[in-house]
């Protein structure tokens, strides 16, 4: 299997590095020097060199984070970081329907 670090990828727009947190599985994003559960804290890469550097740091922290990878984002008009596809939207915001509520 190719390790994610050896994967070649093209960066055609803004990307972030994301993973799940080992202790509880929640979605986290790589920041300039650590991790955050909020996408707005994510370090955005515009080139594959920067993305690869972020990914390398993320992988180095494999006790804290699982399965780091590069995911597309969009930057909205108000400069907000928004997930770039449906899967990432769901990862960030949860299932697209109301969850059952227990009485």
């Amino acid at each position, binding site marked *: 299997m190719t390790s994610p670090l050896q994967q070649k990828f093209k960066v055609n727009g803004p990307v972030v590095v994301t993973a799940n947190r080992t*202790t509880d599985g929640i979605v986290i994003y790589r920041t300039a020097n650590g991790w955050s559960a909020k996408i707005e804290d994510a370090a955005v890469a515009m080139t594959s060199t920067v993305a690869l550097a972020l990914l390398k740091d993320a992988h180095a922290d494999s006790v804290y984070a699982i399965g780091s990878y590069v995911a597309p984002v969009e930057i909205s008009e108000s400069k907000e970081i928004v997930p770039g596809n449906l899967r990432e939207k769901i990862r960030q915001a949860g299932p697209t329907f109301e969850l059952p509520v227990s009485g």
Partner: protein
Amino acid sequence: MYVYDEFDRTFVKERVNDFRGQVKRRLAGELTEDEFKPLRLMNGVYLQLHAYMLRIAIPYGTLSSKQLRMLGHVARKYDKGYGHFTTRQNIQFNWIKLEELPDAMADLASVGMHGLQTSGNCIRNITTDHFAAVAPDEIEDPRVWGEIIRQWSTLHPEFTFLPRKFKIAISAAKADRAAIRVHDIGLRLYENEAGEHGFEVMVGGGLGRTPFLGKTIREFLPKRDLLSYLEAVLRVYNQFGRRDNIYKARIKILVHEIGAEAFSKEVEAEWAQIKSGPLALDTITVADIVSRFQYPAYEALKDETEALESAKRDKQFETWYENSVAPHNQPGYAVVTVSLKPEGAPPGDATAEQMEKIAGLADRFSFGEIRVSHVQNLVLPHVAQRDLPELWRSLDALGVATPNVNLISDIISCPGLDYCSLANARSIPIAQGLTRRFRDLEKQRDLGPIHINIDGCINSCGHHHIGNIGILGVEKNGEEVYQIKLGGRSDSKAQLGELLGPAVPAGEIIDVVENIIDVYVELRKNPHERFVNVVHRVGLEPFKERIYAAH
């Protein structure tokens, strides 16, 4: 109900401790994720999109009220207050934290439950007929054999690292309610001409990317040889099943590539070597297992025709009774299906409150026993007919008495892209949309039994290949589109559905299904001709014309 003894209880406790140690090693960095993953999978712990998911086995679909209450407790304490019953008689929790998992498992172990055999490349949870031991068309309780297989396959030292997962289902009734022909091994318990009970053994069924129906490799297997024969099948598979490609690793590919006959020959040769060994099931051993199954002390009742007739003056009760109540093998009793498919809800989900209250109803009305069906509903298997009206009122108050069992809104669906990291498209919102579109129960009854199965990826946990209408979500250029198959069925006339044509966009799928239903209504000879029979009689053309001409 099978009662765990001190051996089983000790075992599940040891299992929890083992896993607790593994979690500790992982959190301390002593195990990498690559090393930990197969270990957590052996305990039913997956990583989904948002969190870890814990899948708990419900062997052969039988739960005690105590166990169901505990599932409610786990949902409340460690999750977001609900759980999801799956198509393999398991339940899964979607929001569990790894650091809390050992405690959740310890709580489950206190009622004999665990996540073993719910993931990983092992022999998975043994499934069977959810009407086992109460169905009038059954020759004997298949769960006894399910339990024997469960024990044999629990942490099997030889078969825990198979090429791929391995699913076994058993049916002992005329009607196949366990979809045995789409399992790696399907066992049909029947009586041969000499009056002996034994198994027809089918191997190599399965859905996923390459669907196959199982092929019979042994017409009649005496009961005493069940385990030795299974061991022979598994040993052949473990050694010769493909491991070079995950999509070709299931036993169905091995059986397909070398042929059922050659496969059967390998098995018979292996079996000849071990058949009289320690796995042979003598009558004492079987009797010991049987002795730990508790059966209800039924009252001597008569069928309640009169009381029921008067209760049926309430039309809502009558509707529910006609739809959700099945005959029981004891006079005066009935089998009640509890629908987990209310309009607009994710199929198979139950809240902690519902679990706890259904457990209470099981105590009052069903000898404390509940069944989980592979169509993602619950069953109260031993209800006195005189209690039906009261039970119905209680179920209705809980929102689990929708009289849609086997109707078009009784949809089977995988969790799809809303939860699952394998999925390419969402499935639950499609199910929700369909139940809303077909909300009119009178119309549903008029359409008769129709099984819709929805999958969010080709792994087919939602069994779309065998749905009367099978829907498969795929991703195309970043959009969700849905393929449709028609004519599949999972009963004793099991058959794979046929692809209708090009996939349709998410925004159109509900309309398309409605169009398909319109064609059926126009073409059926009479109101009793079932949807699936019409599809087989007229073929796909009339449906294609309607769908693709309009689009």
